[in-house]
């Protein structure tokens, strides 16, 4: 049942990304004639009334994008409010958070019509900082192994999982000590934290050269898992430290963005710009 839900969620998520890409492409192509004009010429363009930030389309994009940004805050609520802890898998919440974190800024970017100035520019660039830091955070997030509930594992839990993996490689797959030593060597050759992503991507190719001929995919999978666990243990403290700093970046900019956005929306509404309402 849970697997079915997860599959359905992935399908919906992929469709959402496709629709988002299609919508953004259409909006961008339809408005590129306007967006490509110098700012001083835009008021004279026929699409000015619709594509300007306060225009029919532009204002709508801003509202939808802002609502998406507000919605993605539910992820934080889900994480922090224990009453919601049973509401869905935290990983799916994160996926939705990421989708909204991608879609919202892009729609807001179209809302600005690439004219970013004034106070709201602070909000915009804060939003972009939050979004890009989210990508980095997602990477850091993946470097911290998690249990089935999506909660970050402690170093001891990871080390125990590593030990289980080593045992499985030796006993179930019959790998000798020499190969285990090789795995340890590969594990420690992951390089710096900044080179780690690339080395992790190339890990499968490197392991195949060390595995015995005819080794099953399961052996390769367990070997990769063992090396990745080993590397995450090696960088565990560093990643956790970075993750703390990431929060320092991600959250304050999110707050800054939200505050200015509220001011922006407040001023806009106060001046009577209520879109179609």
């Amino acid at each position, binding site marked *: 049942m849970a697997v079915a839900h997860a599959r359905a969620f992935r399908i919906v998520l992929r469709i959402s990304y496709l629709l988002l890409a299609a919508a953004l492409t259409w909006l961008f192509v339809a408005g590129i004639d306007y967006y490509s004009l110098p700012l001083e010429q835009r008021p004279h363009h026929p699409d000015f009334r619709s594509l300007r930030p*306060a225009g029919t389309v532009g204002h709508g994009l801003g509202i939808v994008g802002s609502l998406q940004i507000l919605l993605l805050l539910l992820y934080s609520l889900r994480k922090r409010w224990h009453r919601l802890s049973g509401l869905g898998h935290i990983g799916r919440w994160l996926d939705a958070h990421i989708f909204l974190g991608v879609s919202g800024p892009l729609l807001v970017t179209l809302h600005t019509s690439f004219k970013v*100035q004034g106070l*709201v520019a602070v909000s915009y660039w804060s939003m972009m900082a939050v979004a890009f830091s989210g990508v980095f955070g997602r990477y850091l997030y993946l470097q911290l192994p998690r249990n089935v509930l999506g909660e970050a594992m402690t170093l001891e839990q990871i080390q125990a999982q590593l030990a289980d993996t080593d045992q499985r490689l030796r006993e179930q797959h019959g790998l000798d000590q020499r190969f285990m030593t090789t795995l340890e060597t590969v594990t420690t050759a992951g390089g710096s934290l900044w080179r780690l992503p690339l080395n992790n991507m190339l890990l499968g190719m490197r392991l195949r050269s060390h595995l015995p001929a005819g080794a099953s995919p399961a052996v390769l999978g367990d070997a990769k898992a063992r090396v990745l666990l080993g590397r995450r243990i090696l960088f565990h403290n560093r990643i956790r430290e970075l993750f*703390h700093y990431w929060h320092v970046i991600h959250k*304050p900019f999110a*707050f800054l963005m939200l*505050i200015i956005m509220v001011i922006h929306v407040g*001023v806009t509404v106060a*001046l*009577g710009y209520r879109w179609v309402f």
Partner: protein
Amino acid sequence: MGVLRHVSHIAINIVLIIGLPTLAAAQLSPGKLSQVHEKFEGVRQCTSCHELGDQTVGPKCLACHQEIAARVAAGRGLHAAAGHEQCATCHVEHQGRDFDLVHWPAGPKAFDHAMAGWPLEGAHRKVECRTCHRADLLQDLSLVRDHGKNPGRTYLGLGTACLDCHRDEHRGQFESACTDCHGKDAWKPAAGFDHAKADFKLEGKHRDAACDRCHPASTETVEGVADSWNRYRPVEHDGCTDCHKDPHAGSLGNDCARCHDATSWRRVAGGAFDHDRTRYPLRGRHAALKCDACHRADAPRNSLVYARCDGCHRERHPAAADGRTFDACSRCHTVDRFAPSSFTVARHDSTDFDLEGAHLAVPCSACHAPARKGAPTPLQKAAAACTDCHRDPHAGTSTADKAETGCRLCHDASSWRTMAYDHGRTRFPLVGKHAATACRACHAPPGALAAADSLRFRPTPERCDACHKDPHRGQFAATTTTPVTDCERCHATVAGWRAVRFDHDRDTTFKLAGGHLNVACQACHPREGEGDDLAVRYRPVDKRCEACHTTGFLDTRN
């Protein structure tokens, strides 16, 4: 670690709490205002233009732009038109200092001027905007005085009356609107003007006349500048002579319409016109002519030409070589007829050439013949010499005599053939038979048929052998190398050419004596030769006796 996190949060909160309001105050505006609205820049002045809760800015725009508000309130001009209620629809703000708030989507010339309440028509469409919208034509000066408008930029304040932009070409002569007469496509012609509504109705030829023929340009110097315009009113029009010059110089009165109407000056109401009232009463054949025989369309309008015959008639007599002309046709002709002329022989005698003799019977045209058919007949001829009319039959061989008395030296006017000439005036007086000899016997040129008119008088050789054949065949020539015979040494013309001057004893070396005196000449001078060579031998003659006498004769004598 935890300390660092808390320090970060505190620092960010300080930034948010202290910096954000300041940032917000400075950056809330979506963009800088244009230069003219720069004074409204700043977060505290948003509501100077914006109405809270209502995105429209129009009311507050008009609160400042009262000149526009007044026009909107009055329902006048572009801003009062439907669809122009929102100022920001056209005048987009927050686009930067240099942004021009007045935007012409397709340029000022494409602006639909009707939206401003005054559609451009006719020639107005072709002029540049600033031809009319310029500072010196502003009618509403309060725009500058009260609202600080730039008179060089504003499109307001222009009047809609023609004279608000155009100069009054008529200098106040008319009270009616310009458009009552003039269209907007062009000033001329004044298509709306109907002269029939004026006091003076245009009829006939007046319709075709250019306006300035009756309404000439007037010039007046105003403040040192010459100003010229056409005077349309008042224009005196009680009588024709107010505009027209009276060609009759008042001799026919002032009522031109009694004979003329406006259709044509030349068309005269025949029955009503008495030509006798003119300076040229119609007499003779003129009275029967139709008017247009003289008053043709191509005839000069100046009636004074009719004072002279050649005003209508072709000049029949060209000027003489000395330039004299006959300018008084009536001296010879009458209005009843042209020919025959009343010029008599007696009047001819008053000229330099009296008609006499055969000239009296000669038709005029024999002397006064035109140079060619149809050409004028010359009346004055420099007839000083006969050869001005007559051909010289002597081909100039009597020039010396003519220089003295002309042809009349020999001839007179009674007849050419009647001739009287004293040959004694020449070096060859006619004596003897020469006096009875016909002229042509000596003066006919060689080869001529001896016609009288072919006589040549020079040169006429005076030697005998020039006319006479030498019967002596040169026996008495002076020398053999100069075969000239002096005939008169022996012969005398007065004696019938007998050799009366010959003395045989004197003139020869053989004196006649004795029996020789009674001997016939031919006994010693026999005829010799035949035909044309037949001649009496006079010399040489053998003088010896035996040449004539026989021997017995000689013996007897001795």
